[in-house]
């Protein structure tokens, strides 16, 4: 019963390529939506387990993208390894952020915002490495594995579904582990948790590392799928904004929420918002985000979960 929403989402995920496999526009949208879904999941992991709001995930996304692209193009690293290296690169970059973990919520949020700006400027300026604002292209696409061309729309889609599911599984495992339990306690009773031996800063650091790793992985995936990078794109604030809206909309305290939220928000943005307002379409996303925080801060899935627990309690009584 509890896994019903997950099964439903999986069924939809399988149905999409069957129904729209030939439609490259739809599959392209879905691929991008899944990229956002991966980052939204990583953002929610940091927010829900680590208790930190990040406005700077674009930095991890961009670092993952450039690391993977450069390693595969200039150093001939096979793409799967380059993807992994991209994820590791992003995690490595998050280490610079570790001192920020000692800061309280708002200070952390602004520190990481500044941090993302720094990376964008660095990427634009380091023209010898990134190609600067002229852009960087001609790096290898995703390979063909077992006869399935992963660089095709359907292939990329399939790989992304697997990766998103994998990350969701990792998230779930962490959440259910003792570490997850301790982090849950920390949100509202930090002293009580530390006084029994929980190293709060260390656990938060692991969450930041994991979140950056996942974000970097999807940044790298995206780079190899679209085969083009420029700093303004790879470090675009959109990679921070879209996942936040997706996670809040779906419910950042759930695991399926950010994934479903990402697909809905991305499709809404691309199909409806851009149609209505070719310039400034993000205003609708802003309204949506503000509205969710005010009306339903727990998101769609959060509301369902609450109703479900209430229903179960009633049934038991």
């Amino acid at each position, binding site marked *: 019963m509890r896994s019903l929403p997950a099964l439903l989402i999986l069924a939809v995920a399988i149905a999409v390529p069957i129904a729209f496999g030939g439609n490259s526009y739809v599959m392209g949208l879905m691929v991008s939506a899944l990229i956002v879904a991966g980052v939204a999941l990583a953002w929610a992991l940091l927010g829900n387990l680590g208790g930190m709001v990040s406005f700077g995930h674009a930095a991890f996304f961009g670092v993952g993208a450039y690391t993977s692209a450069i390693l595969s193009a200039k150093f001939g690293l096979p793409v799967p390894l380059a993807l992994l290296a991209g994820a590791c690169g992003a995690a490595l970059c998050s280490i610079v952020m570790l001192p920020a973990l000692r*800061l309280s*919520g*708002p200070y952390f949020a*602004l520190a990481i*915002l*500044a941090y993302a700006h720094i990376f964008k400027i660095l990427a634009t300026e380091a023209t010898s490495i990134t190609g600067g604002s002229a852009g960087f292209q001609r790096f290898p696409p995703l390979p063909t594995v077992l006869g399935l061309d992963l660089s095709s729309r359907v292939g990329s889609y399939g790989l992304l579904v697997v990766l998103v599911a994998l990350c969701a599984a990792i998230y779930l495992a962490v959440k259910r582990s003792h570490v997850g339990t301790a982090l849950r306690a920390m949100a509202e009773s930090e002293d009580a948790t530390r006084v029994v031996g929980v190293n709060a800063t260390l656990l938060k650091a692991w969450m930041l590392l994991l979140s950056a790793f996942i974000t970097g992985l999807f940044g790298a995936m995206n780079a190899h799928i679209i085969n083009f990078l420029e700093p303004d794109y790879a470090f675009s604030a959109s990679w921070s904004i879209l996942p936040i809206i997706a996670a809040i909309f779906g419910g950042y305290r759930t695991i399926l929420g950010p994934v479903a939220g990402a697909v809905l928000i991305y499709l809404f943005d691309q199909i409806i918002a851009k149609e209505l307002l070719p310039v*400034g379409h993000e205003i609708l996303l*802003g309204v949506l985000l503000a509205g969710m925080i*005010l009306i339903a*801060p727990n998101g769609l899935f959060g509301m369902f979960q609450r109703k479900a627990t209430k229903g179960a309690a009633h049934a038991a009584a």
Partner: protein
Amino acid sequence: MLELLQQSLFSGLLVGSVYALVALGIALTFGAMKIINLAHGELVLLAAYMAYVIESRTGWNPYAAIPLAFALTGIVSVVIYLLIERIREHRELNSLILTFAIGIILTNAILLVFASDVRSTGSPFLQDAVSFGPVYAMKGEITAFIISLAVMAGLWWWLKNSWYGRAVRAVSSNRDAAKLMGIDPRRVELAAFIVAGILASVAGVALYTMSVVQPALGPGLTIKAFIVAVLAGVGSIPGVFCAALLLGVTEAMTVTLASSALQELVGMVLFLLVLFFMPNGLFGARARRG
């Protein structure tokens, strides 16, 4: 080279005064409500565009836009306050996301109305250069500097002498004690947001008269303001003023000695270093450890 350095020092001081106004707005609302208004930069930008509207429609001096700009930023600032008030759970973090969203809305609203073109004043008076010995400045910069100083003096007087100003300080330093003294924190918070709106309106108009504006500027302004507030240690007006001048000068020096692309980088690196290693800021004392 020496002239160049003198000049960038001077220009940095002038632009720093406007940063101080922006930072004081953020510091004021943060002090009163322990909430960072991430849309504050956009408020400033909104005021700057009002100056553009008045100047381009009527041909008047952009400073004539201050009443209109204040009406608008004041209303938006109060709306932001009322919306934050409605947040019930996890207010500290949810208000960040809320004001972040409002920032997105304002940026895109400006983009929708004014397009992404860069705007700056066309007033011959403001663009006229005056020299002070070896250094020179536009009259617009000098005007902005003087007006900023005057507004800061006014703010200082208000905080020191008026009932609301003293109440803001009381709530900022100890909310519970202020409550016990019969101060309604909500009235004080509202007052802080209105005054932050005034500061943003003046800062925005001043910014328009001495520099160029475009819709994407908002988040950068918020960050700069926060950099200043952090450097100052969210303490006193003189502290914020000194930190703002420091940021202005550092940026101007970076442009002169390195490149304009690195201008923002230096401020942000400085910001992170202070945040990480000097948790009480350069001039003040307030813990920000979690």
